[in-house]
């Protein structure tokens, strides 16, 4: 598996009101790899992630996910891709009118032929994996921010995705919860071979998870490489970012 390309950005550009957000961005994410996109706020990181499943389309360029060009897909094609790609949103984006358990069950009810009891069993497994089995009947408003994030992760994993996209996994979380989520992502990569793309500001987290880091600045990829390579970058901005936000 490793070595095959799971995601390819090919000269992708995106503008908002004539302001370039992404400018000719190209990179590859190999299957089974954890790829972290770093950069300052407003650098275009989240937009990059959203374009991978067609939540937003680029103005020019191509985006290939699992071999399909997302920019050319019709609704059925996008549905096919989205079933294979999990997405954890920055603020979890849980459906607040249904319980924690029903949030996790939602994709299973929509896209599988599992019976009610099988779905409940699977929801139990997923919530257990993120340590929240005891909270399955609570409403999203009744659990903490960290818990919501973990529920969002359980929901994103419900269909056993080949690729997992994660937007700011540690934002608003205490260091311990942040570490727990990183460990969960690492175990997914190691045990299931899931390809993971993480957008983050958190350098210690990126170091823990990432096989490859890409530094995005003003819509361009300034540098791509292993955590070690980025730390030793000749680019002053990259070096400063890695050290200022750094620590271990």
């Amino acid at each position, binding site marked *: 598996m490793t070595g095959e390309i799971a995601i390819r950005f090919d000269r992708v550009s995106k503008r908002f009101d004539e302001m370039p957000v992404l400018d000719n961005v190209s990179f590859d994410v190999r299957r089974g790899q954890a790829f972290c996109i770093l950069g300052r706020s407003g650098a275009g990181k989240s937009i990059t992630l*959203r374009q991978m*499943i067609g*939540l937003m389309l680029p103005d020019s360029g191509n985006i290939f996910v699992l071999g399909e060009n997302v920019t050319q897909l019709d*609704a059925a094609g*996008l*549905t*096919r891709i*989205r*079933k294979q*790609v999990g*997405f954890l*949103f*920055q*603020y979890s*984006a*849980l*459906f*607040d009118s249904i319980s924690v358990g029903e949030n996790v069950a*939602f*994709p299973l009810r*929509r*896209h599988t032929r599992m019976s009610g009891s099988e779905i409940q069993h699977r929801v139990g497994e997923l919530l257990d994996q993120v340590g929240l089995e005891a909270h399955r009947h609570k409403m999203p408003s009744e659990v903490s921010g960290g818990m919501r994030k973990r529920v969002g992760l359980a*929901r994103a994993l419900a269909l056993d995705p080949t690729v997992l996209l994660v937007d700011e996994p540690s934002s608003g979380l205490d260091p311990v919860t942040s570490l727990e989520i990183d460990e969960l992502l690492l175990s997914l990569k190691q045990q299931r071979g899931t390809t993971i793309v993480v957008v983050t500001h958190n350098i210690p987290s990126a170091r823990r998870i990432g096989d490859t880091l890409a530094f995005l600045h003003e819509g361009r990829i300034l540098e791509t490489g292993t955590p070690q390579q980025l730390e030793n970058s000749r680019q002053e901005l990259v070096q400063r970012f890695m050290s200022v936000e750094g620590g271990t």
Partner: protein
Amino acid sequence: MLSAVRGLKDLFSWLGAIAWFGAKGLIQALKPPYELAEISRQIYEVGYRSMPLIAAAGFAVGAVMSMHTRASLERFGAESLIPMGLGLALIKETGPLVTALLFCGRVGAGIGAELGAMRVTEQIDALESLAVDSFKHLVVTRVVACMIALPLLTTLMNFTGIIGGYTAETVISGMSFNLYFDRALSAIDFEDYIPATGKTILFGFMIATISSYLGYHTRGGTAGVGQASTKSVVFSSILVILANVIVVKAIFFFFPGAAE
């Protein structure tokens, strides 16, 4: 002058966008999957949960109309026509219009706020990321539910209005329940009831479409949600009142008996 032309152009472009949004909703409603579970849930939300408001309002409107009608008719010694006048007024016009306006306030605002909040908290994007057609799941289901619920609520309003009228009348004149209902329904036939209640299907479609459009396209965080909610009530109320003029004319054209 130039800004007025531009404003008019923006208005037509906005109305066109809403019309296209609604037409897309109707087309999508005919295509599987039909989202029956979500439609049922929405009928419960917009219909069943509106019943107390509609019933209470209907009762009050009926009672007040009865009191006003009595004040006018007793000058001519025509008090016996009160039930018939009230029944006709309620079923032909007051019931459908008042129900639709109350529906704009309760359901239109709710849809605008709910979809707006889902947009700004990325729940709509989350639906899409889970390979669910958010338009079909959120908009189509609400449009269909409103088109089903509003005629039923109108019938409830008509019924409770007549009860309200009877209550006001019996306090003053001691008229019996059977006599009141007999007189109230004596002049009403299906040509009065069906077109007048049927038009609320169109009102339901308009209210759901406008509110869903504003909620679905909300921008600007919580302030945007508030605006979507307020605009949903304002614009759907205005359009219901304006559309009512055209629909009544159309009813008179297609059902000449309804004009008598």
